[in-house]
């Protein structure tokens, strides 16, 4: 008696799992000089995982539900899986040169990264609490190890330990909240919880459960006041890993938050709306003010990513005060922001990797005059940083526009207040993003800069490809926003909009 399994729906996950196992075996039996094959197999595996996604997207079957509705492949899952595959592919491209230059544990690096990507793919499809929790853990656990990958470096050890301890605390909070939900509703699937919990939104235990779940995911998306691990971890971890943490890992947290809040607790939006309102306002304001004082480029990006998480949370708060149509709009606004943010932040981190190699430092001061000896890199840095700031016509502008649209569409005084806070923060953010660009283009080359040949050495091919692909998306999506909104509109199915 075999359960009814739709293998095409599982094909992306199976491809990634097989690739990860093959990479680990290859690493064991390859001689040291040929370890680069692990990178090639990993990149190929992620590319092949995209093929069944396309097949699923064009098929006419519609939503594919399996295992009693625990694992669903609908348009929402497909769009987010596509994002995770592309982001994983870009991070792999950034990693290739970086990992080779550190010489050891190559196979393990790619194995762990593939496992984390696999976790985020399962996460996008999970529609019950247990599958969701396992997927979230599969995303995070490999990252605890990868953050400490440079094991000779004390800061890398610190990064790993801080991330691990706070991550485990977040998992404990999450499980505690989930156990309350199960106790109160007797259901594990989100559809069941939504049906059983319909009249329970006012019960104190139910409110507490929702708050615990939000706190647990608050750590994963690094929203203030759960953000303390982010700057230290990003700084100490290998930079490609920091890029993955700030994009895929954060997006995974948001996907979990979207699925749980919108599909399991649609009637309790009056409970989670105000909580998310506070998280959004705090994240934007505190992170932006702290970012103003950063001198290290990676720490600056860390605080910037906390602030961006605040912007992504704004539509959640809007969903609490709106009708069903507005709920769908708010949902799509968050997805749009996540997709655009992924490309511009990955691009910014890729530029940082290339720039750190050329300038030999992560201090912003040391980057003076980068535009004079590496004009292409300087120009692309300007593209990504201005996009993060939300300057038209770059894609970051569309993300902010959609976010403000969702906030103003709700129309309540609270949401207008939050929109004003977001607008003030967008201006503050422009100050520190523009300062980096100003240093690159207007400041003189510092005396501590490395010699001519280091500064003008060409960027590794795979890293250049990652930068180029991200830049192409950021520029083109700025002129043709429908490229992104077409996909994010398709995800509304989950919010019933």
């Amino acid at each position: 008696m075999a359960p009814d399994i739709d293998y095409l729906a599982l094909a992306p996950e199976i491809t990634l799992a097989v690739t990860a196992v093959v990479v680990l075996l290859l690493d064991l039996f390859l001689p040291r000089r040929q370890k680069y094959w692990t990178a090639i197999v990993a990149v190929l595996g992620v590319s092949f995982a995209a093929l069944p996604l396309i097949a699923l997207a064009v098929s006419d079957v519609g939503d594919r539900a399996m295992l009693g509705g625990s694992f669903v492949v609908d348009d929402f899952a497909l769009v987010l899986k596509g994002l995770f595959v592309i982001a994983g592919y870009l991070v792999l491209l950034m990693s290739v040169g970086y990992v080779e230059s550190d010489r050891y544990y190559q196979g393990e690096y790619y194995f762990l990264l593939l496992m984390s990507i696999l976790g985020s793919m399962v996460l996008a499809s999970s529609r019950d609490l247990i599958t969701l929790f396992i997927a979230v853990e599969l995303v995070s656990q490999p990252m605890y190890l990868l953050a400490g990958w440079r094991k000779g470096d004390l800061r890398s050890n610190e990064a790993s330990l801080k991330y691990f301890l706070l991550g485990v605390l977040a998992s404990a909070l999450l499980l505690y909240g989930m156990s309350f939900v199960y106790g109160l509703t007797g259901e594990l699937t989100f559809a069941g919880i939504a049906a059983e919990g319909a009249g329970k939104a006012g019960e104190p235990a139910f409110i507490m459960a929702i708050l615990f779940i939000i706190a647990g995911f608050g750590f994963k998306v690094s929203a203030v006041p759960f953000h303390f691990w982010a700057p230290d971890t990003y700084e100490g971890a290998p930079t490609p890993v920091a890029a993955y943490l700030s994009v895929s890992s954060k997006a995974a947290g948001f996907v979990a938050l979207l699925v749980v809040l919108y599909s399991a607790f649609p009637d309790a939006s009056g409970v989670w709306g105000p909580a998310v309102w506070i998280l959004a306002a705090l994240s934007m304001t505190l992170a932006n003010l702290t970012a103003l004082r950063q001198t290290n480029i990676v720490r600056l990006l860390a605080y910037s990513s906390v602030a961006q998480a605040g912007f992504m949370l704004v539509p959640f708060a809007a969903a609490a005060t709106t009708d069903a149509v507005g709920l769908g709009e708010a949902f799509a606004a968050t997805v749009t922001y996540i997709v655009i943010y992924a490309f511009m932040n990955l691009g910014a981190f890729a530029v940082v990797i290339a720039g750190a190699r050329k300038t030999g430092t992560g201090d912003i001061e040391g980057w003076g005059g980068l535009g004079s000896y590496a004009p292409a890199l300087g120009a692309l840095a300007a593209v990504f940083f201005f996009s993060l700031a939300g300057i038209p016509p770059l894609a970051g502008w569309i993300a902010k526009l959609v976010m403000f649209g969702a906030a103003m569409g709700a129309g309540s005084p609270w949401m207008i207040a939050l929109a004003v806070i977001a607008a003030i923060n967008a201006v503050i953010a422009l100050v520190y993003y523009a300062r980096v660009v100003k240093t690159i283009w207007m400041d003189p080359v510092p005396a501590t800069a490395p010699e001519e040949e280091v500064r003008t050495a060409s960027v590794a091919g795979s890293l250049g490809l990652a930068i180029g692909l991200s830049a192409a998306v950021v520029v083109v999506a700025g002129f043709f926003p429908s490229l992104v909104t077409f996909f994010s509109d398709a995800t509304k199915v989950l919010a019933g909009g």
Partner: protein
Amino acid sequence: MNLADYLPIAIMLLLVIVFAGASIGLGNLLGPRRPTPEKLAPYECGIVPELEPSQRFPVKFYLVAMLFVIFDIEIIFLFAWAVRFRELGWFGLAAVGIFTALVIETLGYVWKRGALDWNIPRRARYRLSHDVADEEAA
């Protein structure tokens, strides 16, 4: 939810508390007490303890403990499959086969990395575990 379902658990809890409390309390009340220095020393398999208990010990023990836990959990999954062996048929056999192969791969990985070699020289272990290509690069 019916709270009456929890009655056996409540009775069990009560029994545990009474039994444990009575054992310790009666032992303290009735037992003779004639302490000697030997009796007060920590018990270590009958020999005289020589060192403080909290010491650094090789990380290898941790690895062995981890492996034990992994295989222990594998057995739990195998039990669930074994009691429904006939009903699950070839599908179940294939699923368990894949699962076991993955666990064995873990063992192979640990073995090849040298984590199971208990007595290899320090230098060789360093090279195995770090896989550093310093000499080759030079």
